[in-house]
């Protein structure tokens, strides 16, 4: 079995993002970037499946500018065998990403495609489902447990009401939740080895995918600041306000 894992380079989750002064977007210069957190879970799961003997090869793919390669290198350092970097410029919407991934799937013919459930930058939560649609493959989103069976996966999904279990036939797309596993650290020797693993580069144009955005980003702003309300004198007044003014209890 072969697993393709898609990883995205995003602003590190610890960095407080800053809106550009001209409201055209978010400042990304000199900002620490990292792998999108649930994508780390996706890689980890693929590596665990390989370690259990159920998969033979893991291919990590990223889409973006040159520096996005760091994300693939990190995936290679924790156990992916090979990397692909599809070079693009500017914003690439999930629809275009899923078209690129589709083209790669057609070339690589993986049995499974894993990725994080959502990127922490645009918060779209679309790519996995879109790729599943384009390939007409089953989709198991928000996976918090994956059991690999003979020709299928049993996937436990984190849904609003609790947990849901579905069975999807292979080939399938899985999007991973943070609760799926605890990603391992890349060891120093493995980082060294990762530098020598193959990393193919191509562009979206090579794959015949138009990445022109369909959605115009008109402006990006800081969320409005919340203003202080009132101070109440005592508990009775508080309960009265909550009951009769705010009507929340």
């Amino acid at each position: 079995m072969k697993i393709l894992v898609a990883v995205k380079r995003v602003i590190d989750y610890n960095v407080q993002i800053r809106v550009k002064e001209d409201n055209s977007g978010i400042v990304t210069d000199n900002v620490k970037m990292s792998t999108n957190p649930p994508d780390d879970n996706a890689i980890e799961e693929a590596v665990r499946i390989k370690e259990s003997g159920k998969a033979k090869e893991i291919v990590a793919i990223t889409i973006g500018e040159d520096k996005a390669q760091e994300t693939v290198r990190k995936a290679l350092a924790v156990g992916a065998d090979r990397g692909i970097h599809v070079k693009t410029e500017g914003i690439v919407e999930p629809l275009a990403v899923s078209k690129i991934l589709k083209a790669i799937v057609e070339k690589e013919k993986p049995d499974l495609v894993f990725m994080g459930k959502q990127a922490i930058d645009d918060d779209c939560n679309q790519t996995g489902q879109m790729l599943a649609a384009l390939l007409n493959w089953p989709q198991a989103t928000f996976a918090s447990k994956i059991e690999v069976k003979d020709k299928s996966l049993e996937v436990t999904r984190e849904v609003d009401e609790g947990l849901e279990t579905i069975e999807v036939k292979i080939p399938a797309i899985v999007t991973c939740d943070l609760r799926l596993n605890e990603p391992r650290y890349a060891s120093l020797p493995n980082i060294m080895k990762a530098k020598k693993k193959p990393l193919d580069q191509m562009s979206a144009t090579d794959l015949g995918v138009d990445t022109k955005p369909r959605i115009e980003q008109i402006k990006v702003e800081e969320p409005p600041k919340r203003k202080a309300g009132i101070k109440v004198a005592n508990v009775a007044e508080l309960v009265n306000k909550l009951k009769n003014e705010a009507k929340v209890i």
Partner: protein
Amino acid sequence: MTKEVMEYDVVIVGGGPSGLSSAIKLKQLNPEINVCVLEKASEIGAHILSGNVFETRALDELIPNWKELENPIKTKVTKEKFLFLGKNKSISWPTWLLPKVQQNHNNYIISLANLCRWLAEQAEKLGVEIFPGFPASEILYDNDGSVKGVATQDMGIDKDGNKKDSFESGIELHAKVTIFAEGCRGHLGKQLINKFELDKGKNPQQYGIGLKEIWEIDEKHHEEGLVMHTAGWPLDNNTYGGSFMYHAENKQIFLGYVIGLDYKNPHLSPFDEFQRFKTHPSIKKYIKGGKRISYGARALIEGGIQSLPKMYMPGALLIGCDAGTLNMPKIKGSHTAMKSGMIAAETIVEHFRDNKSLSIYEEKFNKSWVHKELHQARNVKPSFNWGLILGIIFTGIDQILFRGKLPFTLKHKHADHEALMPAEKMPKIDYPKPDNIITFDKTSSVYLTGTNHTDNQPVHLHLKDPELPIKYNLEKYDEAAQRYCPAGVYEVQMENNINKFVINSQNCIHCKTCDIKEPSQNINWVTPEGGGGPKYGNM
């Protein structure tokens, strides 16, 4: 379990200006030498914080064609100001009356973090292997007592010391020579200085804490290339310190405050002094209507040549501010740190090639311009022990009339941790409440540093005596840690009517102030899990 071993010719601990310059120079002198750089931050530059007005002397020597390359050194100093601040007033000091070392035309306003990122790129092009996210946590010694390398931290240990699922053992890096370039108060450098008695016969090291914010300000107040320093308010005559304001590119200013850690009043809070300083009319007028976009703090070396330890020992060299090469009157340490690293590289190449002892480092260093600079500067900082006014008068005589050539050397008499006076004997300081426009509280400031340490790992701030903060420090010094820490790591909390000392180690921004200032040297800063700590951008 034995750790995996990797062998290098040279292992460099720390990816700052000295370590990276050393790596580059080594490869330039002999491309065959294999060199790796370990960096505790998640990426090069993420733990770098500095003013910074940059003198290019060392860089001119290291990469003579740097101007032809794409580089992050953009803003030339065009104008200088020096102000003495009173509470509401300020007096401008003519720049021609400033000591030569404080004149900055020919220098550049830069982000040292960005310069380090750039140096790292140059180093990697030459074949240096750089590993961010891997703190060196332990020094390894050979049977003969010489340094044989370092071990990296184990990853994935829970707070009780058990291995988590994600446990990944650290490894041993063995090297013919290990270079320690951790910056001011490196936690391995500290051990080496003790073990090899590198500071024997030297004055106690002197430190300061530097706090810095980056502001994006209104175009009409921004003068790219302007360098401004102040002394005076809000500090009293007996506390050593002052501010900087550098007008960088993109409408940004680098605004900072440095306070000598030999301050006496345990009620003093460097963070709050800095916040208060910004309310001075001469400062406020620049930042009004602007936006603070970054915050950070870092301890720095102020001891100069009197306190500079021996920089070589069997199997290792100690460079940059891990030893203490900063030139305090010049308010610059990057060029001297770089040069000390380049000398280290030359030393090692001769050591390998001609089997010369590492002790040649000292001869080379003493012959270099770094030594000359530090020698000339040596009397400035200690003269401020007499207070700001006498210090300035003396410095004028020493630096302007005699150019640092007076035939005596003033001593640093005490270590900084010995300086605190009992709380009851010192005046309390009433700091104004933050307005969240010009002045801020610690937590919202720390948020801007992006600092984080993975949950559930051992606390990396070790107390030698866990009882001491409450039993001794609280009574005697009103536990000054609550105030000298610029990140709100230390708090005293009342719990069920019992005082408890709380260490919010997640907040730590790796400035090392606590390790320096704690009166009984009770706090030992050790490396947390790799990648932890601040995520500075263009600091």
